[in-house]
């Protein structure tokens, strides 16, 4: 499976070269072998430290990560500033190291449950970091970066992971209380008012991210994942309703006060409007160029290396999916979405198979986080929902997200290993009935 994924990536890489220069790039084998070595190392770690793990997760992620590399290489060839395949390979290597380290160090994921509140604190701290003076950095109007020397890092990416662990630990402890029914209104059991506390806090947190950092995507991501986990833990539909109402209300309020949320909505409703298109900040030019790209791809796409990704601002980041749509067409997009769906499905299967509630909640939460993130960014780029900036997991250029997502996969692998591991053999086979034959 893994070998197949690597062959697909190498073929795609060669195809890019053919499309651009009419020859196979000299690096096909070095890059390909590098990636292969990396992934087989990861496989070795997986085989040794998590032998019962889900066999599909690593090949699937390898495929998406490899395709991401190919597309970043392809965009780099057009000369768009910021796209660097060699840097992305470096980050991929680091991601694999983190993946391996997580598997090696974390023998039992339930250890994490002990650090529930620590994780909560880390998550919060990471979220707040970009707002601090000196290390905080603002790019394109969003304050989501920290800068230490030449290195920039998006701590929110890691914060998501920490927060999901926190949610899982917290909800497992409190789910019985939260599930207690309050008054019944129409067909919905409302929760007790005093149990609203954590919901309100998370709500405030995500609105804080939205308002202070102007990061609509992360805010939506964190809050949505929290609501989903709350629902999984308590089985109360009312929480979902309350959550959605709270977020929509909060976002509308924020939209009234802060322009950038409203801009996004205007642009979503009428991206072709020249007034929005020409707007310098919060305009629709990027969205429209992405749509043009996907529209021109048709069913089979223009072929790798034969589209015009440089027409799309930041095509290697948030809009990499539009480049996939242009060069691989509808077919490629559908296939890619299918791979994501498979990863999510394997994660949720792990949640179902897990033996303890914390694992169930954590695996479910992480899987949902991934699905929700793909939905928010792909939906945004394809104009299904208003565009909110988020990276496409494993594809977009950017180290912070790649590292986080590799750790996320390591956690899923660890849990799937635990879930699929056969129960320890009883020491004595007392239960066995011996059958004698005469």
């Amino acid at each position, binding site marked *: 499976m893994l070998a197949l994924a690597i062959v697909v990536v190498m073929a795609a890489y060669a195809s890019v070269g053919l499309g651009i220069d009419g020859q196979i790039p000299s690096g096909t084998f070095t890059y390909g072998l590098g990636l292969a070595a990396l992934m087989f190392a990861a496989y070795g770690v997986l085989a040794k430290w998590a032998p019962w793990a889900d066999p599909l997760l690593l090949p699937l992620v390898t495929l998406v990560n490899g395709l991401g590399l190919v597309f970043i290489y392809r965009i780099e060839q057009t000369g768009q500033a910021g796209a660097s395949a060699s840097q992305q390979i470096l980050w991929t290597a680091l991601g694999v190291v983190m993946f391996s380290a997580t598997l090696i160090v974390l023998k039992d994921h339930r250890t994490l449950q002990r650090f529930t509140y620590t994780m909560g604190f880390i998550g919060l701290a990471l979220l707040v970091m970009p707002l601090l003076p000196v290390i905080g950095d603002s790019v394109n109007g969003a304050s989501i970066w920290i800068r230490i020397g030449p290195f920039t890092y998006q701590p929110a990416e890691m914060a998501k992971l920490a927060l999901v662990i926190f949610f899982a630990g917290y909800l497992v402890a409190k789910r019985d209380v939260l599930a207690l029914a309050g008054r019944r209104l129409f067909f919905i059991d409302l929760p007790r008012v005093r149990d609203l506390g954590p919901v309100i806090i998370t709500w405030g947190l995500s609105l804080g991210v939205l308002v202070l950092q102007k990061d609509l995507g992360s805010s939506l991501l964190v809050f949505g994942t929290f609501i*989903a986990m709350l629902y999984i833990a308590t089985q109360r539909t009312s929480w979902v309703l309350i959550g959605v109402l709270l977020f929509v209300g909060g976002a509308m309020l924020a939209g009234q006060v802060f322009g950038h949320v409203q801009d996004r909505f205007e642009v979503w409703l009428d991206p072709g409007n020249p007034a929005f298109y020409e707007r310098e900040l919060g305009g629709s030019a990027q969205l429209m160029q992405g749509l043009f790209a*996907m529209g021109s791809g048709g069913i089979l796409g223009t072929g790798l290396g034969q589209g015009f990704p440089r027409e799309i601002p930041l095509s290697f980041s948030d809009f990499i999916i539009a480049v996939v749509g242009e060069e691989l067409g509808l077919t490629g997009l559908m296939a890619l979405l299918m791979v994501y769906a498979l990863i999510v499905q394997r994660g949720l299967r792990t949640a179902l198979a897990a033996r303890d509630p914390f694992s169930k909640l954590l695996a479910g939460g992480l899987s949902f986080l991934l699905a929700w993130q793909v939905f928010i960014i792909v939906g945004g780029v394809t104009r299904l929902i208003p565009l909110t900036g988020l990276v496409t997991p494993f594809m977009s250029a950017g180290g912070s997200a790649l590292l986080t997502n590799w750790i996320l996969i390591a956690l899923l692998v660890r849990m799937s290993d635990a879930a699929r591991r056969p129960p320890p053999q009883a020491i004595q086979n007392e239960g066995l009935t011996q059958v004698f034959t005469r």
Partner: protein
Amino acid sequence: MNATIKRAAVACMVMFALLMVNVNFLGAVKAGDYSTDNRNKRSFYARYSVDRGWITADDGKTTLAKTVDTGDKTFRYEREYPNGRMYAHVLGFFAPESARGIELNENKLLNGSDPDLVVGRLIDFVSKKPPKGASVDLTIVPAAQKVAYDKLRASGKRGAVVAVNPKTGAVQVMVSLPTYDPNDLAAPDKAKVATAYNKLAADDTDPLLNRVTEKTYPPGSTFKVVTAAAFLEADRSRDPETTVPAPQVLDLPDTTAGLPNYGGAACGSGEVTLRFALERSCNTPFGQIGMDLGWDTMRSESAKFGIGEPIQFDLPTAGTTIGPEIETAALAQLAIGQRDNQQTPLQMAQIASAIANSGVLMKPTLINKITGPDGGVIQEFEDDEIGEAMSGEVADELKQMMVSVITNGTGTGAQIPGVTVAGKTGTAEAGDAPAPHAWFIGFAPAEDPVTAICVFIEAGSAGNDATGGGTAAPLARDVMQAVLEAK
């Protein structure tokens, strides 16, 4: 918790399903709008990513438009016109956002998107080769085109020359002056091309206009052949020797003005033969004939030559008319090609062509052959008959009279040594302007016509005393001679 995890899983799958449906909606429904949006530069880039087919003449021996591989990544293939100015109105141009002429009309074949080329395109797509278009060979005779262009340009006059093969409708010469350089409009630079185009469009002499097909002018006395054809057709007891009244000034009904002959001259002695009237291009006999034939006959007879609607052609053509039905006096004037009578040079060449081809009118065409990128022939020359403009007998009588015009009438300037030429001159008043349009239509050799021609010199570019015989006929002679020599 498993029940809610399953529900969350359903929610995830619904999200993915929504994404997939939306992606398909985008690709299937919205893609069309996106591709035509002018903020989408892809269609602009795409124009230069195709190895566009060449345009040639003379069975591929003369290159008129070629595609050059620049090696540039964004604009790989650029268009060049080796003899741009000479062929500008035939070829048109291939600009960043538009095209004209054959470049426009045959665009789908030239850029390879025509359904006939689907197999080759698929192979190119799979093998990642740039798409290649079909090449188009024109019926133009380069040697004659060059003579027409050089002579007309050297004279410094504005006008048009068009020659067709009367038996097939193949266009041999098409020159319109002033002209422009299509190379200026083919660069992959929108701003530069827009500037060049705007400059041409603002030019008072209208270099972008194809005077052969796109504009109508009063045809003057060249139209008398149509009136004569109608006169002969109306009563088959008539022939070139039939006498017609030829006063010095024709009285027009309901008006004090009369219709004089050219320069107020007399025409014979009050009564002349039809042949003599045509030779000398007398106005009064044809004015009288027009009034005698009446509106319906004049209209139906000219419709048989294709007048009254735009000619079906490979380039855009203007609609022609003999004018609206008004007072009888107008009838006399349209019969000599004046008043509201408006014809294109191509239409006048068609009239000469029909007479040359024993009355049968052929559809004019520029396309000789279209060859796919793989060398397979996609389309070959095919002549197409429009209909019978007059009986073969009448055509022969007209031919005889037109030969007399050249031998001892107004068209002596078109004589070619050793070749019998048939023709008719025309000098048309252009509105209130003091200078007239000069016309010549004709064909040669009269016995077995190879080429039918129309030369048109625009009013004002050849002085106030320009005449069809003096200004247009010699040019027609040179061009016809060049066609005959090239054959």
